[in-house]
């Protein structure tokens, strides 16, 4: 028998064994892994400053109750894969998951997250939770009143700028001379473009702006949608998942076209920057303005002190929408009931007003508590709290249906092609809309 025959024999054997393979039952799930030491819960979040703050709060909780809280931080780039691989196992390594807002559909429909609808109102007055945080971070479907998470980190995209450059008299004068108006923090996207253009000086290694534009996860989409909405576009119809005729509209096209122009006013490589790289271009002192999540701003503030300022994202024709970030806290269904009870105790403790007031003292501990957000004390606490509180009122999210990942993939792909000039924007959106409806139909959501 020659190797060729061997290979074909293998294939033949394989196809013969297909029947038995397909009919055989899955092995029963193994007994749950090593038992947790009693009285401790494990929380998973991605690696960033707010997670450090949560760990500090966890120690307070331990002092009060004796239950240890371990916050494990996983780099964002691989967070999603790791979480969903865990859910494939019989028992997840985490008890509480602080999952991205967009995962909630999958978590709810695949029964990965414990439903909290009946329990949550017994520990917190739901009316104190900001309605937009409730809608996007906690409920599935949006606004259905079915809760699968308690709000943990509320976040939105905001604007950080080099205050020292904006206040430099020489710059102010030059700007006035060039554009016939004062140099100030941009209120509209058109202003933003002008200021970025003004600061774009590659010869002296100074650049106008950096925006999230990464293609590997959700960067580009989270950046672009601020403009897409502001320019009158939308991802899908208000009350349904219909996409064709909703997404491929002049508003969406205008928003993306504008974003494309802004990407040219950045440092080298501005066409593909993830959140970290956007941040780097600002912290290495080369860029005047960045769009990024408020949760990063405490770090910037620490580095630059009063040389940096913060603002809400600009508007277009008075319409301002901030891309939502942030995560809710969910309890894994793949843990023993005793662990679920401990997790509930922690969440109940965390949702108390007095703990939320502690939470906001941690770096980027952004609460969803509407009363705290409204309070003057909160807004005055840091330079970024005010703009943040204001952004919460106008924030919106991408999809959070179970097939959000595939929707995100095609969105990143087609918007990427539009931004890269590989395809006319209108054409890209038209194809994207068709792709999305196909995915939604396959998933039975349309």
């Amino acid at each position, binding site marked *: 028998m020659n190797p060729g025959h061997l290979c074909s024999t*293998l294939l033949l054997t394989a196809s013969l*064994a297909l029947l038995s393979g397909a009919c055989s039952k899955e092995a029963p799930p193994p007994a749950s892994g090593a038992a947790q030491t009693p009285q401790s819960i494990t929380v998973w979040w991605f690696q960033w400053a707010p997670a450090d703050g949560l760990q500090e709060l966890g120690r307070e909780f331990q002092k009060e109750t004796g239950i240890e809280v371990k916050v494990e931080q996983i780099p964002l780039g691989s967070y999603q894969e790791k979480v969903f691989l865990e859910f494939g196992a019989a028992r997840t390594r985490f008890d509480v998951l602080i999952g991205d807002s967009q995962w909630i559909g999958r978590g709810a429909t695949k029964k990965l997250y414990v439903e909290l609808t009946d329990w949550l109102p017994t520990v917190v007055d739901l009316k104190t939770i900001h309605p937009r945080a409730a809608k996007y971070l906690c409920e599935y479907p949006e606004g259905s009143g079915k809760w699968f998470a308690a709000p943990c980190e509320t976040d939105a995209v905001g604007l950080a700028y080099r205050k020292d450059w904006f206040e430099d008299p020489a710059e102010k004068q030059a700007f006035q001379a060039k554009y016939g108006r004062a140099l100030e923090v941009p209120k509209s996207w058109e202003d933003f473009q002008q200021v970025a253009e003004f600061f774009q000086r590659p010869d002296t290694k100074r650049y106008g702006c950096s925006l999230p534009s990464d293609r*590997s996860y959700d960067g580009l989409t989270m950046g672009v949608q601020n403009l897409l909405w502001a320019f009158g576009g939308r991802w899908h119809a208000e009350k349904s998942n219909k996409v064709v005729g909703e997404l491929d509209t002049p508003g969406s096209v205008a928003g993306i076209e504008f974003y494309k122009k802004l990407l040219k006013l950045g*440092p*080298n*490589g501005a*066409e*593909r920057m993830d959140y970290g790289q956007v941040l780097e271009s600002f912290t290495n002192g080369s860029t005047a303005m960045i769009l990024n999540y408020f949760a990063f701003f405490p770090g910037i503030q620490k580095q630059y002190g009063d040389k940096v300022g913060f603002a809400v994202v600009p508007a277009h024709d008075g319409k301002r929408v901030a891309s939502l970030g942030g995560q809710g806290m969910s309890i894994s269904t793949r843990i023993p009931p005793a662990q679920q009870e401990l997790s509930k105790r922690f969440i109940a403790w965390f949702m108390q007003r007095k703990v939320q007031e502690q939470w906001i003292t941690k770096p980027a501990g952004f609460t969803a508590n509407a009363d705290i957000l409204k309070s003057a004390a909160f807004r005055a606490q840091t330079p970024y709290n005010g703009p943040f509180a204001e952004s919460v009122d106008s924030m919106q999210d991408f999809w959070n249906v179970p097939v959000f990942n595939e929707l995100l993939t095609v969105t990143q792909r087609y918007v*990427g092609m539009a931004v890269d000039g590989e395809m006319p924007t209108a054409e890209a959106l038209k194809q994207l809309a068709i792709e999305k409806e196909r995915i939604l139909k396959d998933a039975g959501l349309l």
Partner: protein
Amino acid sequence: MSTTTDVRRHRGGSTIAWSLVGPTLLLLIAFNVFPLIYNIALSFTNRELVGEDSRFVGTTNYTRVFSDPLFAGALRRTALFVVCAVGAELMLGFALALALVREFRLKRAVLAVVLVPMMLSPAVMGLYWALILNGNYGVVNQILGSIGLPQPQWLTDRDLKFWSIVVVDVWMWTPFMALIALAGLSAIPPHLYEAAEIDRASRWRVFMRITLPMTAPLLGLAVLLRATDALKQFDLVMATAGPNDAATQTLSTLLYQTVFRDGKIGLGAAFACVVLVLVIALATVFTRYLDHLRRARET
């Protein structure tokens, strides 16, 4: 190259023989044939990464695979990658081997340095190349900028990023080609060159008539080894562009995206089955070539 000593075999003793080779064969079957079968079974279901509910969906996944522009794109891109990367490695490696074939002082030291990249971890080095090629603060662009040249966006320009990955692959694997080409060149009997000198053959003629034909079998082997490896390209793409970038997605990264990001195990299995058929075809070519080489050597 030495010829294998022809050893006489023990006759009988097949129990001993099987107990020696058995464990290895069983392990290989368990980890290769079983997954193959399981993959085929999965490819007819709509199984997902999470959740237990899956059902038989017939050939839906295969219909999707063959109509999916992503799969066609990844296939085309992988083929392009194999041809370009392996081609460049072959030419550069051969040139390097020609330069290194004659003896000189420090030859061993030079050889050791030149050969290092192919032994390193592609995942780690790819990550590091992403820093070197970073458009904003990478050292390549800093040098280009400081001598007044334009600074291309190696990893972000949609026309460039694919080629940047090819360059990193060439960095890693040119030494491999050089190593094998060097072996081929060193094995050419000097009397052939001497004869050519007497005939006053031109350099080009000597190269085409002696050097190339004499090294060709080994180069063929090297090309096949590299091609089967490049076909799996995953690590470098993940390190520099991520799994989901339309301009750089290869078959392996598409599989990763489908299974681990989108959670579509059934569809992923269908992709994998099609890929495996391709790989098996290539492996067959490879083993036949090896067999052919061996027989040629024995006669």
